[in-house]
């Protein structure tokens, strides 16, 4: 049983500001059902004063996730956007009288949702920076930016702390090295900026214990015999269709789907629908699809998602 503070229990049992905010002009969605927690933060901002006049949340998650979401709304109502953006995850945890270390990621989720909602209000695209290797933890869809923010805001110096705060590295463990690299880089920067004592900074060489990857098998990547190159376009499209058909049960299981839109040279355009849409794991899924297609066709290619009804 977790040792939750009285305030966490209170905000879980009697959450304030839960439900849909009909007049919201900023909405931030973070997390995913596949990852075990997700938060939708809805804010109403007065365009003249920039003051957040109302905020509500909907949360899928554990007791501390719900309490953290509710606490976040209490913290930001009545504040201007600029004032609200100063709030970080530690403020949420403090407001609740502290959270168990393993649950700090709940407060980080609140912090990330606030940034997403503000971006949405301002009309900026809130894109999790998942392009080209920036995604560190594939299991939970955690990118480098989120890890960096958590490390900076909370002066984290150990890999286990990063997992507690962001969930990154908490499943298969294959990202341990990348995670360590980000931690080392950000810690070095913090030392440079005078925010962290050099002897406290993370040093991968004297990290306690070696973290072993638990499994290296991606659920989508199954070995298949490579097909010799030199395929006609029709053959390629047929092979791609076949591969997608094989993967379909995986999408369906999670309530989504994926269809082939077009093929141009080495670029394969696909459209996700259902639960795959907007899932934080979309980029993981993409990578899995790409790996599978490359195996099947025996040649490099790039899978590109297209928005519904635009292509």
């Amino acid at each position, binding site marked *: 049983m977790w040792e939750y503070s009285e305030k966490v*229990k209170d905000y879980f049992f009697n959450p304030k500001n839960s439900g849909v905010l009909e007049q919201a002009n900023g909405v931030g969605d973070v997390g995913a059902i596949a990852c075990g927690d997700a938060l939708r933060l809805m804010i109403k901002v007065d365009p003249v004063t920039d003051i957040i006049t109302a905020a509500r949340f909907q949360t899928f998650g554990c007791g501390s*996730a719900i309490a953290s979401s509710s606490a976040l709304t209490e913290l930001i109502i009545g504040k201007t956007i600029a004032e609200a953006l100063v709030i970080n995850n530690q403020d949420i945890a403090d407001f609740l009288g502290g959270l168990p270390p393993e649950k700090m990621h709940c407060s980080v989720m609140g912090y990330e949702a606030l940034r997403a909602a503000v971006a949405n209000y301002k009309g900026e695209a809130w894109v999790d920076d998942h392009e080209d290797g920036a995604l560190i933890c594939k299991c939970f869809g955690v990118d480098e930016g989120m890890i960096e923010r958590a490390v900076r805001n909370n002066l984290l110096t150990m890999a286990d702390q990063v997992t507690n705060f962001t969930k990154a590295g*908490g499943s298969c463990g294959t990202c341990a090295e990348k995670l360590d690299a980000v931690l080392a880089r950000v810690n070095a920067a913090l030392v440079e900026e005078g925010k962290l004592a050099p002897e406290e900074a993370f040093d991968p060489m004297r990290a306690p214990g070696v973290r072993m990857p638990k499994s290296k098998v991606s659920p989508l990547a199954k070995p298949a015999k490579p097909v010799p190159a030199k395929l006609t376009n029709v053959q390629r499209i047929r092979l791609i269709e076949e591969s997608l058909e094989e993967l379909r049960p995986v999408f369906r*299981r999670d309530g989504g789907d994926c269809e082939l839109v077009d093929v141009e040279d080495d670029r394969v355009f696909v459209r996700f629908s259902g639960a795959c849409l907007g899932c934080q794991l979309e980029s993981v899924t993409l990578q899995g699809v790409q790996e599978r297609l490359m195996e099947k066709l025996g040649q490099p290619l790039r899978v590109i998602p297209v928005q519904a009804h635009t292509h």
Partner: protein
Amino acid sequence: MKSVYCDNNATTRVDKAVVEAMLPFFTEHFGNASSMHAFGAEVGSALKLARQSLQRLIGAEHDHELVFTSGGTEADNTAILSALETQVGRNEIVTTKVEHPAILSLCKHLEETRGVKVHYIGVDSRGRLDVDAFKRALSPRTAIATVMWANNETGTLFPVERLAVLAHEAGALFHTDAVQVVGKIPVDVKNTEIDLLSLSGHKLHGPKGVGALYVRRGVRLRPLVRGGHQERGRRAGTENAPAIVGLGKAADLALLHLNEEQTRVRAMRDRLEHAILRSVDRSLLMGDPDARLPNTSNIAFEFIEGEAILLLLNRAGIAASSGSACTSGSLEPSHVLRAMNVPYTAAHGAIRFSLSRDNEESDVDRVLEAVPGVIANLRSLSPFWQDQKTAAVEFNPTYA
């Protein structure tokens, strides 16, 4: 208001008669069974009686086939490590993806440190073992096959009698972790080919910290704990006499109540389960409805998370459990539900209710009063519950 305990697969209340049987062994009969005087002798004979009680409960041919241990985990560890030593030239283990950590953690450790090859056999969406894959994994390299008799999370029963025969055809030993079945369903090892079987005291209204490993006569056993000659040299250390006496008493009582588990407890479980599945929209039964422990019901509630459910149930005075990530400190849903390929929409919201002879019909009433409100409450907070009403979610549960 009295609390309702529905977590008997985690542990059970120690029967009062068990406590009474144990107490004299702390202050009156405190002797060491190995001693050559009356104090030792009276403890020695009490241990023998306890061994015979267990022998009756699991249908062993000889009482000396039972080795007392500190519990189910030690029994599991002993069985596997012993097999790797005694089965010369064999360096593989066949097990399942849904075993208890007492087996899985050890297997992972053996893979990493000793280069042992472990085959993890999968299950289908109802938690039923892929017996063909099990058969295929067996080979002249298999030292031991180990498959739990019943899964602790879903209650699904595995065909261990048949699996033992298959293991023997490959010349391998067969072990079963039976901690969840002993005392719940009839067990008669002498009419099976099972070589080794683990059981635990606290799952059958006995004390914690005691269990036993059944070792069929003729099966060689290398001790895990070395030292004195206790347990015929198979488990060193002065016997935990009060706990062993308690386990013996618990075994006697379990045999007495075995029929009740199959009738009264099963009827309560069925009523609880049917009513929840009927009254709560998008709730799914986890496990094999056709082959299950009589006391266990695992129900997944879509679009909400298990820890939150448990906290609200706890506030209503109801104790249950979940394989949810958030309760265990792990970040992923239970390995059992993942092996069953339970959809993500449901895997995080699975709750296990496990009853025992201590439960009464009024307990079931209390659960049924509380559950629908708790689920509705959390779903009103969940963004996915609202979305699923508008969006087309392609997920059609095949059983419910």
